[in-house]
């Protein structure tokens, strides 16, 4: 896909998204309510109308070839970029899904192992040190210092002994 095609697609998506937001805002009152001022939907409605106009203007400029992107035929994503970006995005996706399934601490451990060992090709020594140290640091910072419990899902029982230590 070239940058030119990407800009067209993005312009269309932006316009559709604006229309969606307009419809969604119009579910509420977008007019004037006597004694209470503009209805709750008015502000987002007019903002999304503005978004629609801005996207249409971008599309118009694309057709006229005014923006530099609309004349560019270089690939939107080179193969190399696609690989490097999808590894990162994919591993974060894995981290989030795994957090739901097995809790954030085990997910962090696996995420770090994957990124350090298989993407970064660092030694097993460095990998294992960071793989343990970072989740422990996160635990100390959030659970202990900030008192913000992070999601642990099915691994919750593993932490009972630590809670006993922390809160006794």
């Amino acid at each position: 896909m070239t940058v030119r095609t990407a800009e067209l697609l993005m312009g269309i998506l932006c316009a559709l998204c604006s229309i969606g937001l307009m419809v969604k805002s119009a579910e509420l009152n977008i007019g004037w309510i006597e004694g209470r001022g503009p209805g709750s939907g008015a502000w987002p409605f007019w903002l999304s109308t503005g978004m629609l106009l801005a996207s249409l203007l971008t599309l118009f400029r694309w057709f006229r070839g005014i923006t530099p992107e609309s004349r560019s035929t270089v690939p939107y994503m080179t193969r190399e970029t696609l690989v490097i970006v999808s590894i990162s995005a994919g591993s974060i996706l894995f981290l989030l899904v795994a957090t739901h399934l097995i809790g954030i601490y085990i997910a962090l451990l696996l995420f770090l192992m994957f990124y350090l060992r298989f993407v970064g090709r660092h030694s097993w020594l460095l990998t294992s040190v960071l793989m343990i140290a970072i989740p422990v640091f996160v635990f100390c910072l959030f659970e202990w210092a900030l008192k913000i419990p992070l999601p642990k899902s099915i691994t919750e029982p593993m932490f009972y002994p630590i809670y006993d230590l922390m809160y006794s």
Partner: protein
Amino acid sequence: MESILLLLGAGILEALQPVNLMMIILGCTIGLLVGAMPGLGSVNGVAILLPITFLVPPTAAIIFLAAIYYGAMYGGAISSITLGIPGASTAVATVFDGRPLAQSGQADKALIAAAVASFIGGTISVVLFTLFAPPLAAFALKFGPPEEFALMILAFATFIGLGGDDIPKTIFSILIGLVLATVGLDIISGQPRLIFGDISGFLHGVNFLVLAIGIYGIGEMLWTLETTKGKVAVHKVQISFRSLIANLKDIKSYIATSSLGSVLGYFVGTLPAAGATPASLMSYGLAKTFSKDPDSFGKGNVAGVAAPEAANNAASTGSMLPMITLGIPGSPTTAILLGGMIIWGLRPGPLLFTEHPDFVWGLIGSLYIANLATVLINIAFIPVFVRVLTLPFTILAPIIYILCVVGGYAPTQTMHDVWLMFVFGIVGYLMRKLNYPVAPAVLAIVLGPLAERSLRQSLLASQGDMLTFVERPISGVCILIAVLLVSYPLIKKYRNKPKANT
């Protein structure tokens, strides 16, 4: 004047409290590291680390974040000089002369000039800040909802007029930020709004941090990975105590341009769209124009390093002026600071000076201390910061991602927000590749609730008469300037056209 000095003295004492002093030193060091890493700047550091500051009281928290901001401005120069890649966009101009100096084996000279110039910029701008902030805040006390709204319009207009990005895309970015800010319960009627797919996570709204961390954490890392491909080459830096003294004596060759650049940077920095990057480029241009030897610029002139560095530091202080006095952030970083202040339960704006003087003056005092602390830490640990640059991306990237994920979870403690942050990061990155500016959206989501409230209050008071914004003198002037700013690119285009034809 005397009262300002008294308040400032109290502020400096507040900043010297053990916990605050510790925050300054920690913040400066983290800022220097974040600034030095290619691709990461103050805004990324502040966005990713804001959730962690819930640990300390608000004054200490903002001092910490302001110190990061400061440190990052110093740190940006380190990678500009040793890698030839700007550590942050604000240090782009530093590359022009910093890189040739490093290539000719004078990296130490450039690094010290950058640090000293940053100190000059910081000092001059902090003094200007102290002088301008109280009268501006006192003046802003007269503002009612229409003036507040007009000021926000003015802030957004600067993006359109001076941002230099594609105008329809800039407008889109501003508006989507404002729309995202309306998600959740309506501030006046309490009705749920824009709850997509009836997902309950949208009921508490889209927290600005979710967008900021998504764009400046995940999106920025993807962007950096793409542009550097994770590979960087560092120039050698040799530094000794003797060369340090010798280099410090260079100061007379650039003190004049740095001072001029600082004043310029300060005023450019107060504009929301302009900020540190254009300030440093303008200061570089100015230094070159007024130099006796303009040809040496770009080939390794120390003044070419000093001028932009002084300006970008001064601009970072400048951008805090509208944030503290008017409640309008002067840069994306201060937008995040402003959002933080709202989380801490402070209402940004002119009342801050009368209601929370200890907070405001503590912050101002901390800027003086942070400036001094950063220059000392910077010069003392130059070799350490250069080492950090050799840290492989495959170690840095996962750590940043983890900070983003846990940082996105902390404010509301729902996984919904973390997913949303991930989506914003990816979409933000894809849009940024197509030249959609992202900073206006972050500014807009922070200002959104304030803008809507002041708009609706004004309309209620005026019985729906839109003219209220033009009829009141202060808001009328703001709207007028906003209109001029928006039409500026059009006028420029119109005036350039006849020239192009001949």
